[in-house]
């Protein structure tokens, strides 16, 4: 962005003279005694330069080559989704690999996977906000966006997997001509409420954070249309102290609501399984173990998105090794919790004298399902042990690779939970296997398309980093490396 100053189309004031343009390659990291990178932001950032760096992505369409390439691929996949879904509605659920006994297949696997991914966003943003973890400020926006889009993908599947999607609304309470209501004992109804609530609240939370930044874009946008658009979506924000005051209250309260919400949603998703009596599903460890898994896969996905993003748009100054390191650590710890979950499942399975539970566990250990159990173990427990080493955590490429591995691992885990328990349950006479069809894969990849299309559009339309939040970290007036606590001057 060395052309920032020379840019002609950017309206508004040029950055104050003498502002060192923020380095595209981060300065040598500074380490704490414990060996953690300390810098939250690269040195030499100003309000203006931060704004410039972030705003230029939507306003000046930089790096459009990369963007278009990615968008092409995503759009193609999205088209695949449209085809797959149309065909599904025409012919029926039979085009998938589901059968009796394995009546749930990819659809539910993908649902749990996506909703899991959808957890990191709100979690990073809300919990870290409440815990005053300032390193959240440069990554929360992207994470929240990821949440929204992941939940959208997740929300698709429960609808698609219905035998009669045209009457999905039976799931919701409304005065019908039959005098009937949803059956509130069913975890699926809980799902319907949990997911829709989660989506709504995340959306509000995200948008609330966006409003001031939209105002910034409005004020820096060159084109009339752009000014109009951002003018509308920023609701005429003018940064008035009174507004800021209420905005902050609402924002923190929402965070306070979102935090238990995040935990509840994946607990409820886990209840889809643990409420059932199936060996391998009927287990009390599920809620915590699912939540841990959600955070795990969520952070993995954030890394998968942020690392290339930060590279392509040269944001190393705002998303520093410290951010990556912190995320890696959170991911690592939640990973260990997941590992504990696996261990407990096997342990309880072997311990219990319930023959069915027992048989199920054995078939995972060295029976029909070991072929999937061990890959899961490898991806989610063994490989992530690399994160013990700082050098791995500092190495973006290693982190990126690792995050991919974990994403795959977590998807496999859900496959293991859904399919293996169903295909070998109580009566050997009804045992049966499950094989996905082309349309199973098409639908899965298709939702990837949906996800990335939305995400790329988001990069082009909205500030991908929260400028107002980052500004808070700068010492007002002068430049220099910010420190963790807000400036004494700032609060009087």
């Amino acid at each position: 962005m060395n052309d920032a100053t020379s840019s002609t189309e950017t309206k508004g004031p040029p950055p104050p003279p003498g502002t060192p343009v923020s380095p595209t390659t981060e300065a040598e990291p500074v380490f704490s005694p414990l060996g953690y990178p300390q810098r939250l932001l690269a040195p030499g950032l100003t309000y203006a330069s931060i704004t410039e760096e972030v705003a230029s992505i939507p306003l000046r369409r930089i790096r459009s080559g990369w963007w278009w390439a990615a968008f092409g691929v995503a759009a193609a996949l999205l088209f695949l989704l449209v085809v797959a879904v149309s065909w599904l509605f025409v012919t029926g659920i039979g085009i998938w690999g589901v059968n009796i006994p394995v009546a749930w297949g990819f659809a539910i696997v993908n649902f749990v996977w996506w909703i899991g991914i959808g957890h990191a966003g709100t979690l990073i943003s809300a919990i870290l906000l409440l815990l005053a973890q300032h390193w959240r400020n440069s990554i929360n926006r992207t994470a929240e966006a990821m949440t929204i889009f992941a939940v959208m993908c997740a929300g698709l599947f429960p609808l698609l997997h219905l035998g009669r999607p045209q009457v999905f609304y039976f799931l919701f309470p409304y005065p019908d001509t039959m005098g009937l209501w949803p059956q509130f004992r069913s975890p699926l109804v809980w799902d319907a409420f949990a997911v829709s609530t989660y989506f709504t609240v995340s959306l509000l939370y995200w948008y609330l954070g966006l409003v001031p930044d939209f105002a910034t874009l409005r004020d820096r946008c060159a084109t009339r249309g752009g000014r109009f658009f951002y003018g509308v979506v920023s609701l005429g924000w003018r940064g008035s102290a009174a507004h800021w005051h209420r905005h902050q209250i609402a924002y923190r309260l929402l965070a306070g609501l979102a935090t238990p919400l995040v935990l509840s949603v994946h607990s409820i998703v886990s209840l889809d399984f643990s409420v059932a009596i199936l060996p391998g599903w009927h287990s009390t460890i599920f809620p915590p173990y699912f939540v841990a898994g959600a955070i795990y896969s969520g952070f993995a996905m954030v890394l998968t998105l942020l690392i290339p993003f930060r590279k392509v748009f040269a944001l190393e100054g705002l998303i520093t090794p410290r951010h990556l390191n912190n995320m890696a650590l959170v991911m690592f710890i939640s990973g260990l919790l997941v590992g504990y979950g696996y261990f407990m499942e096997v342990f309880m399975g072997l311990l219990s004298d319930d023959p069915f539970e027992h048989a199920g566990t054995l078939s995972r250990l060295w029976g029909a399902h070991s072929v999937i159990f061990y890959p899961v173990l490898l991806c989610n427990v063994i490989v992530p042990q690399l994160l013990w080493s700082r050098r791995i955590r500092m190495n973006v490429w290693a982190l990126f690779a690792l995050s991919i591995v974990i994403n795959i691992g977590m998807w496999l885990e859900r496959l293991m939970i859904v399919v293996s328990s169903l295909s070998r349950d109580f009566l050997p006479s009804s045992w049966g296997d499950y094989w996905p069809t082309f349309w199973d894969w098409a639908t899965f990849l298709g939702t990837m398309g949906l996800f990335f299309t939305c995400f790329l559009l988001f990069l082009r339309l909205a500030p991908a980093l929260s400028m107002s939040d980052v500004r808070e970290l700068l010492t007002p007036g002068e430049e220099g490396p910010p420190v963790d606590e807000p400036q004494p001057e700032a609060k009087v």
Partner: protein
Amino acid sequence: MDLTELKQAVERLQRCGGEKGRLEGWRSLEELADTTEFRELLEREFAVPPDEADNRAGLKRREFLQILGGTLGLAGLAGLAGCTVRPRGEIVPYVEQPESLVPGKPLFYATALEFGGYGRGVLVETHEGRPTKVEGNRLHPASLGATSLFEQATILDLYNPARSAAVLHRNGPGDWPAYLQALQTALLKLPPGGEGLHLLTGTITSPAFGEQWNMIVQRYPAARWHRYEPIHDDAFLEAERGAGWEPSEHRYHFDRARVVVSFGCDFLFALPGSVRYARELMAGRSGERAEMNRIYVLESVPTLTGAYADEREAVRTAGPDGIAAHAAALAAELGVEVRFSGTWPGGGAAAWARRVAADLLAERNRNGALLLAGGDQPPVVHSLVRAMNARLGSYGDGKGTISLLPPLVQNRVHQGESLAELAAAMKAGKARVVMMLGGDWVQTAPADLDFAEALEQVPLSIHCGLYLDKTARRATWHLPQAHPLEAWGDTRSFDGTASLCQPMIEPLYGGHSLHEVLDGLARFPGRSGYEIIRSHWVAPGRLDEAAWRRALHDGVVEGSAPVAAAANPGGGGQVEVALGEPEAGLELVLGPDPSLWDGRYAQNAWLQELPRPIHHLSWGNAFLIGPATGERLGLESGEWVRVRGGEEEVAIEGPVVIQPGVADGAVGLTLGCGLWAGSDESPFRVRQPTVLLNRTEAAHERGESGVDAYPIRTRAHPWRRAVVLERTGRNDRAVTTQHHHLMEGRDLLRMGTRAELLERYPASGNEPLPTFYNLTEEMNDAYAWAMVIDLTRCIGCNACVVACQAENNIPPVGRDQVERGREMHWIRVDTYHFGDPDQPEFGFQPLACVHCETAPCEPVCPVEATVHDREGLNLQVYNRCIGTRYCSNNCPYKVRRFNFFRYAEGSAREPLQLMANPNVTVRARGVMEKCTYCVQRINAARISARKENRLIRDGEVIPACAQACPTETIVFGNRNDRGSRVAKRKESPFHYALLGDRNTRPRTTYLARLRNPDRPPSAT
């Protein structure tokens, strides 16, 4: 084709005076539209090719039948449940309402259906003239209210769009009058004695038919009647001739038997009397009685009887350890004079013989011995069995376990020879007119007869059959046959009791009964079936008007059963036994298919899809080999092999299935599968196929309906022959609905001797575990419907499965869907085997929804689509179901079925729509379904009971499965009624709930399977 056209057509017809030679009675224009004259007329008038004409007429007829359906408001038929759009139909009343018909109320008619030529009495349920369901006839000795799967499935054959609907002349359009002309001219050309006139039929017991033949013989003394059934008992006939016994047929009395020894005889399934026999056998086997009878079975390939036996030996046929050897050894032990030429029975056989002999001679079993030889056993076995039975006093007149009846079949001949004779005559060009009634001999005749080729030599060959099969295509004339439910007829049952068969509906696809066609030989143009049957029966010395009516009403002709001949059975004297050398190679063992019999049901999608007992193969058969053999040959299930008969170069290909219980060295294969495989003769091309038949067709076309065994079946080796196996390299598994037959040490199917069971399961299993839930509210209702399945009685015959399918509009889904694990049967018969895989024991466990009181499926349904009612039924409300399939996941029994596609499409469209039960919803795509305890029957009973302000009586509600069951395995009733059969059974010490430890509190519970082996059984 509109009404006025039709009316003009009628007038013209009357002018040209077309005589139809069909039964008189209430007629409609539609029916007329079907007559061949009318088609002919159409051709003249509108110059349309006959097939189309036929279709037009067909459409007209369908419309008409739809109107019939219409009187019911098309309940359950017109649309599929769950379409949220309200139907805006029409109401189409009768112009004149037939007597005794109330729209919406079913009528039942008694008639009889034939199995292998012998009658089984049935009642047919009809709705506004549409037969929808077949039930057993309590008054009929061969039924006693029960049926086999074949009677249940016949209803689909009736409506089967694949049925032949047009007269064919040399495969081209033909018509009835022209046929009559051709026949007459041909007959006139015959030499005076009528040499060259040949009749070929299967087994026929119909007295009227016999009488007709006699007339024909009077006119053409030299006319010959040949008879051939692929599943025949020539061996017995040979034995009979050889020993000079007087001709007789066996009627067994299993209720008198204490020890039954079967040498390869599948008496629970394959005999004309099997349905009755199974019931009789149970008299000595129910859990209530302390001492049970005992069944020994020797066979090479597991059959139902073998699987049910107390002691089963899997042995080959020939050789020193074969079945014959066992028989001989046993005979010797029993003191029959046996002279062995060559080898002697092996040690195994001898030891077995000693044990069984001891058992047979034991005092407690005096006069209780019953030995049987399978029709596929060599003559010597039959002689030995006859001798042994005689020696053990089994023929004791009146009290014995066997009575000998005078022959019941018309034209009792050695069928192999009979057919060969015909073939020879045809080859020699001596046969001028050959009439082939109701069979597909081109397909089923022994391969070395070249029947097809011989048929070419015949100037006038006439074939009458239900389908356009191979014979139909090769015969000069093909005449569509009227289905047994469409025609008049008569028949005799296994014990000689005669029954009248009456039509329920005008022939849907046109056609004539065999009687009518045969009559064409005697006179021109031939009488109607009604005249034929009535003139035979209403005659001095037979029936008067009243008796005729009673016979029609009851379905049996009183006192028509012949008295057992108190004759000397013979069987004394010496028996020559030549046991072959021990055979090294493989032996192919052929037998009837448990679903398709000899192939005559190959067009029936229900039976094609029906999982065969024991291995649960669906849509076809496979080469069954024992584990040991598989080990030796290094073959796995699913590998395809080429099986080559010894001498000549015929070979057949198919998948191998490793089946425990197949004798080492034996290769089991059933007849009747794979017909039409890959041939251009798939009859489905002829009519526009419904979805259902698309499926059957596809299976046939792709050669996926199994292995056709006939090419390798020769005169010399009808049942077994030495073969060699070659790998083909191809590898795809035969389709089966149960992949895993071991119980994995779980307590699912309780089986053992009385002592074992009482000792192993002291708690009767009646007390459910404690629960948090308060279930009393529901318990207090007047009714608590429940079902008890007595595993001791279950012979795994599948009758319940087909009965359920017929009653509840369950669509077949086709091979590919079954392969995906999506079969729809509401009730299934699980099979488990125990112990040594080469000599396993088998157990059957019928399983439908067990209607748990604390049903796991219900709380997980998000929309209240599956809930309980106050009588304890676990309901599935189709039109509320959104298809999350969560209930199925959470069902520990996996008895729920899901409409992954629009499976019911076929059943919702003409003509199969007419077959549907109007009292059961046809399910839409994407909804779950399962056993309902036949709630429609409960409701019907409740309504009539409530009208009279009384409670439903025990036995007033019988679900389809229980009703069809030959052995009363399934008992259904009100558990709250202490006196009900269900309540009584639940008090049995052998009573238990499947997966009772899950505390699902199923309403359907089981009685453990009692066995009574002589030797200690291998651990269950």
